[in-house]
């Protein structure tokens, strides 16, 4: 039951994009087509889950026992940057088709604030390593869902005549606002 509530909370109620504004750069930047959006969603899911597994392990076994929490930001961002590089190299070696599909998104993920944001968030919440990793996985799934829905709507939006000043990013932001309104309906679910 605990995990079901966690899933609903992370995916719908506290959706990282639409309720917490983490990762809005790629959300607006690479959501023109459903295919690229789903590529980005899968890449983020992959990297975020591994990143939090590493950062929370480091937090529990290195930073906390030695009282080094003030180094949290530097440690986490370095781990994430190194991890993204490593994932890129490993994918290139063992699975070229997957690398072909996700390769272009990987460098962008280092500066995706959702990765660092959720890693810090679960540390603030004081979750255990397993709970942290699961929570991150669900949050990332929420990100993937939101970006795919959003891209689907944007594809349709291209066919509609909208005033010139609002075309592009402004229309995307207003659309995101309407989506966020819809997601507010989940607010008191958990």
């Amino acid at each position, binding site marked *: 039951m605990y995990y079901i509530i966690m899933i609903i909370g992370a995916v719908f109620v506290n959706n990282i994009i639409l309720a917490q*504004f983490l990762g809005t750069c790629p959300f607006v930047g690479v959501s023109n087509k459903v295919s690229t959006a789903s590529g980005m969603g899968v890449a983020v899911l992959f990297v975020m889950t591994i990143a939090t597994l590493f950062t929370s392990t480091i937090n529990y076994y290195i930073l906390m026992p030695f009282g080094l929490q003030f180094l949290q930001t*530097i440690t986490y*961002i370095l781990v994430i940057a190194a991890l993204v590089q490593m994932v890129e190299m490993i994918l290139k070696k063992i699975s070229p088709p997957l690398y072909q599909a996700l390769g272009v998104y990987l460098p962008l993920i280092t500066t995706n604030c959702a990765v660092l944001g959720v890693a*810090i968030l679960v540390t603030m919440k004081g979750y255990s390593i397993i709970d942290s990793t699961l929570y991150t996985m669900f949050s990332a799934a929420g990100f993937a869902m939101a970006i795919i829905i959003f891209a689907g709507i944007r594809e349709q939006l291209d066919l509609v005549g909208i005033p010139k000043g609002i075309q592009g990013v*402004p229309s995307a932001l*207003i659309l995101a*606002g309407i989506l966020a309104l819809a997601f507010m309906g989940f607010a008191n679910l958990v």
Partner: protein
Amino acid sequence: MSKLSIVTKGFIKENPVLVLVLGTCPTLAVTTSVENGIGMGLATTFVLVLSNMFISLLRKITPNEVRIPIFIVVIATFVSIVDLLIQGFVPALAESLGLFIPLIVVNCIVLGRAEAFASKNGVFDSMLDGLGMGIGFTIALVIIGTVREILGSGAILGYEIPFMKGNEILIFVLAPGAFFVFGYVMALVRFLQKK
């Protein structure tokens, strides 16, 4: 380029948020009030000026292949300094900005300026560029923050506005309002620039 135009280009013409669409996460998240917007803007300006200065100082000895990790370490150092200073001296601001202070590290504006300007230009010019971009960021946050605070909580900088108080539109301080206001402000800037 004259020294003055390095500073002023960030204000409107190349405004990082409203024209270049960088750093959208903090823009959406912290603009529930003008005060938060100013706090976030100043913290980011501080990081921008100092990280630009340092990266510019190191630009001749930075190997090209590992420049991104080096930039990130420099930026993360200054972000940690700001984080600890704010927690120590303005705990109320640290409370309301919360997670978004450490997230200055991944603000695309900071890394973007390091890559596009500071790694190629002199120390003083880089500092001016950081200052201009930081002020441009603050301007954008203050504009969006003002609209959201007036409409959403019927006040400005904490002072109540007679008619608006009691007629607040709550949605503007919640998540959807952030997207709406940001979208329309950006559309307005584009419209004015075309003229």
